[in-house]
């Protein structure tokens, strides 16, 4: 049968009534017919095809929605609390999953280990030499494979036609690395062991998906093509998948993308002696060997090598750590902090929802009892209560998930790429399921259970409730305040640390300074050739309009890049193996002015230092940190120093002292640093620093175009304003502060809603009692004060608990706090005072309402 339309049915009823009216008159007809609406209702029910329980559920859900509309305040509060808690949890879990919790994207990630070395005294670098690596390969038995990985290599692809030269960050790696990481090229193949051998017939390379798309437009024939690097042809044999991500970039000394992978054997450093340590080693532990035994074997082999080659490897200890641990270690404290904060916030949300629903449930006891007395069956009422709360929890979950999705999308531009390394956080469905379950359980537990207990009482008389807040509800409010305070104090500590870090001067003037990297053509191999190239570059850029100063340097500040040398100050002797190290830089005379680094003592480099190699070879600048370390209390100017592992009598005189510049980030101490003139050691890969009066982005473009005009064989990369670099160095701290700040604000909001709702509902419930007391002569102000006092009492309890909680948790923050004590009374007091004030303000409105109770109406309404 075709389904009938309700209009058709209505027409039939009308026809019936008309026939009936022929006999009895219209009123009589209707009376005889009974309730037409009811008939239509029954018609509806009979035409629906879905089962009865679905209809009942739908009806209950509609009832729930209608109730929500009737109590918009309480509903809005509950939804806010639910959605806020859930959204925050989802966002942070998503980030933590990428940074700390999730597995590495490699098939055998748990068995990957990093072999590193350490020297006593500690020096920069934890790599192995070619010979050490060869020995390990031969001797270590705990591993299925060992792969050597070079530092990142700035290969420059030669200019082809209109395409200027391009830097291609390259890693030289053992053939074993591909299978070890489970690499499956999307096109072509990974290189074989025979291609990773000294004297291999042809140089081959595997490229990244990014390079493939950028240089070959993602077209197929990249494989088999030749790329010329310094005139030497390199055959491309494979393209990596787009989602392949190597997590060892920091090992290679870069935060950027690795674009090309070549066999380790092709690296020019392979022939260097045992004393030059440059290889990072990644090892795949055999499945049948325990991690402890593998570590033990590496340590033993290292000890043997140190005894065998005391001159090169003496004082060197070997160790192996889990690769996953190593990758995660830098983010662990921050993510643990955030996960803890999420836990607090979720608890807070649950407490808040519980409190709101508890109050509603209590308020509905008379209603439930009444409906029971009117004949509603208990399962029927329970079903309705459950449905209502499910609707509430469902709406809250949906809002929370949608909010989290929006936040994650909004957060993406904020997420520092070097932090998330290409893999962006996304909504986690498992956590969504778990959190939604927790919220639903809370909603059902605190919403349905109390109302349900009322159903056991048979009478319709409202259950007698004692005055005041009630112990459970007071405790719930106090818990919310305690948790919110802990979050606020945490955020306060982080904010203080952040402000302290940002108030530190980087040692240079970041405003209007820009920098970019370039490389001289590969034909410039000798020092005079490189010097001529550097000078040509300087001359070209100095002539650009709008540039106040320009300089070249070997390493930028805040990059965390290190190149050190042993320092031999004249007249000072150190124990063998304890020769001090300093950071070693080459800079042109204009560098200090371009970056805005002040001169503290003596003179600076002159233009002759940029041109005259003989003149420049005896001159050196040092920074304040070096001056204080080696010549405390006296002028360093005029002292002579030598450099290198074994000095050969090439003395250089300190001609001046410059200000400290932060090399590793604002929160790290400046390291002793020396600067040598450009003419002494011309730069093959100079970093250009320029000071400009106007728009930095435009200037960067001009400089880039200018360099390409000068020589298309020179690539330009890492172009950025110094202000951006400064901001980038604070990215993790800022993100962390932002997230915890959001939590603290959300937590405070939830707690305030909690206090307000609890006090308001308590006042509403006590209306009759308050009215009676007013009628008996109690002064209204006193009733208001009583409500406030109650709020104050609960808040005080919550604040006390919150301070204790914060004291316990703040210890875990210590590593993130930078010179801020985890127990700073000021922050604790300010947070507690502020939150207390807000809590009392939230109680103000209910207090006023209590004081303004009209005895006559209140008693009439409820009597």
């Amino acid at each position, binding site marked *: 049968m075709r389904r009938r339309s309700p209009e058709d049915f209505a027409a039939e009823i009308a026809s019936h009534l008309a026939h009936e009216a022929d006999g009895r008159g219209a009123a009589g007809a209707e009376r005889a017919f009974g309730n037409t609406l009811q008939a239509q209702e*029954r018609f509806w029910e009979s035409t629906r095809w879905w089962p009865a329980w679905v209809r009942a559920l739908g009806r209950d859900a509609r009832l729930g929605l209608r109730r929500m509309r009737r109590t918009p305040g309480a509903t809005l509060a509950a939804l806010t609390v639910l959605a806020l808690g859930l959204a925050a949890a989802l966002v942070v879990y998503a980030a933590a999953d990428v940074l700390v919790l999730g597995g590495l994207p490699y098939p055998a990630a748990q068995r990957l280990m990093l072999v590193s070395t350490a020297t006593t005294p500690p020096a920069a670098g934890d790599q192995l030499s070619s010979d050490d690596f060869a020995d390990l390969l031969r001797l270590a038995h705990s591993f299925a494979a060992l792969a050597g990985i070079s530092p990142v290599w700035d290969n420059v692809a030669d200019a082809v036609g209109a395409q200027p030269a391009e830097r291609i960050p390259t890693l030289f790696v053992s053939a074993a690395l591909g299978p070890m990481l489970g690499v499956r090229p999307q096109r072509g193949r990974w290189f074989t062991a025979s291609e990773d051998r000294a004297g291999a017939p042809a140089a081959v390379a595997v490229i990244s998906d990014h390079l493939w798309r950028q240089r070959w437009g993602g077209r197929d024939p990249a494989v088999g093509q030749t790329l010329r690097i310094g005139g030497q042809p390199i055959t491309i044999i494979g393209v990596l998948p787009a989602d392949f991500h190597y997590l060892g970039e920091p090992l290679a000394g870069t935060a950027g993308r690795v674009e090309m992978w070549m066999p380790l054997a092709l690296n020019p450093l392979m022939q260097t002696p045992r004393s030059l340590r440059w290889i990072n080693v990644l090892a795949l532990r055999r499945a049948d060997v325990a991690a402890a035994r593998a570590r033990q074997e590496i340590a033993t082999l290292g000890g043997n090598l140190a005894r065998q080659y005391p001159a090169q490897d003496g004082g060197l200890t070997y160790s192996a750590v889990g690769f996953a641990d190593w990758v995660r270690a830098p983010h662990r404290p921050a993510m643990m902090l955030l996960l803890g904060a999420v836990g607090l916030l979720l608890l807070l949300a649950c407490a808040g929802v519980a409190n709101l629903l508890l109050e509603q449930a209590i308020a509905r006891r008379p209603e439930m009892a009444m409906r029971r007395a009117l004949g509603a069956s208990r399962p029927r009422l329970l079903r309705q209560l459950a449905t209502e709360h499910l609707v509430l929890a469902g709406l809250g979950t949906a809002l929370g998930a949608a909010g989290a999705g929006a936040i994650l999308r909004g957060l993406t531009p904020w997420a520092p790429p070097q932090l998330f390394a290409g893999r962006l956080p996304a909504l986690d469905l498992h956590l969504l399921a778990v959190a939604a379950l927790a919220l639903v359980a809370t909603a059902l537990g605190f919403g349905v259970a109390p109302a349900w207990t009322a159903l056991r009482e048979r009478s319709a008389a409202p259950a007698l409730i004692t005055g005041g807040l009630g112990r459970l509800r007071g405790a719930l409010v106090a818990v919310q305040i305690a948790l919110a305070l802990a979050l606020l104090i945490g955020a306060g500590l982080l904010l203080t640390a952040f402000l302290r870090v940002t108030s530190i001067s980087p040692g240079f003037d970041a405003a209007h300074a820009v920098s970019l990297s370039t490389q001289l053509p590969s034909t410039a191999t000798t020092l005079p050739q490189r010097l001529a190239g550097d000078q040509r570059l300087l001359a070209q850029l100095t002539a650009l309009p709008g540039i106040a100063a320009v300089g070249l340097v070997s390493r930028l500040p805040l990059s965390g890049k290190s190149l050190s040398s042993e320092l031999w100050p004249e007249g000072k002797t150190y124990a063998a193996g304890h020769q001090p190290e300093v950071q070693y830089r080459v800079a042109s005379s204009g560098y200090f002015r371009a970056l805005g680094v002040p001169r503290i003592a003596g003179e600076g480099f002159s233009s002759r230092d940029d041109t005259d190699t003989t003149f420049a070879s005896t001159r050196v600048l040092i920074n304040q940190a070096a001056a204080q370390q080696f010549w405390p209390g006296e002028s360093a100017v005029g002292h002579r120093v030598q450099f290198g592992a074994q000095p050969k009598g090439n003395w250089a005189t300190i001609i001046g002292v410059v200000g400290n510049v932060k090399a590793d980030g604002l929160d790290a101490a400046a390291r002793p640093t020396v600067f040598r003139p450009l003419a002494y050691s011309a730069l093959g890969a100079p970093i250009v620093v320029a000071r400009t009066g106007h728009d930095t982005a435009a200037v960067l473009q001009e400089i880039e175009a200018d360099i390409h005009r000068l020589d298309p064989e020179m690539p330009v990369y890492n172009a950025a304003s110094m202000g951006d670099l400064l901001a980038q160095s604070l990215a993790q701290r800022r993100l962390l502060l932002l997230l915890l700040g959001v939590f603290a604000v959300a937590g405070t909001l939830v707690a305030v809603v909690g206090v307000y709702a609890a006090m308001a509902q308590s006042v509403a419930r006590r209306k009759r009692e308050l009215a009676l007391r007013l009628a008996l002569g109690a002064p209204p102000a006193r009733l208001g004060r009583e409500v406030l006092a109650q709020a104050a009492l609960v808040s005080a309890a919550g604040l006390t608990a919150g301070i204790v909680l914060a004291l316990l948790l703040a210890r875990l923050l210590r590593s993130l706090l930078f010179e801020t004590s985890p127990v700073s009374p000021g922050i604790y007091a300010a947070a507690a005072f502020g939150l207390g004030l807000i809590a009392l303000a939230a109680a103000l409105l209910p207090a006023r309402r209590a004081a303004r109770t009209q005895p006559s109406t209140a008693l009439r309404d409820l009597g």
Partner: protein
Amino acid sequence: MPTQDAEALALLQGTLDLLILRTLVFGPRHGQGIARAIEQTSGQVLLVDHGSLYPALQRLERRGWISAAWGTSSAGRRARFYTLTAAGRKQLGREHTRWQRLSEAVGRILTLEPEA
């Protein structure tokens, strides 16, 4: 509920279907006509709850025992006329038998004399 007559009987659940089918044996009728026929034939003893009549018609129509079409009544009004289908005729036979057995059984119990 139209209960002007205290003696009038409310229909036993399930009997309405039977009575509708039975009424339609004499030809197509519209809803109001069916109700009137039942009331008249029963000598005004059986009152049809008109609010239940249409859901019942709906039910029977869905089961394929009656079919419906709009037409014009003797009063010159548009009305929806119901006709007994072949399946409905069969069903009537079954229902009829069942009802007779039931009423016989009930009648026996009610007329049972206490054993002397």
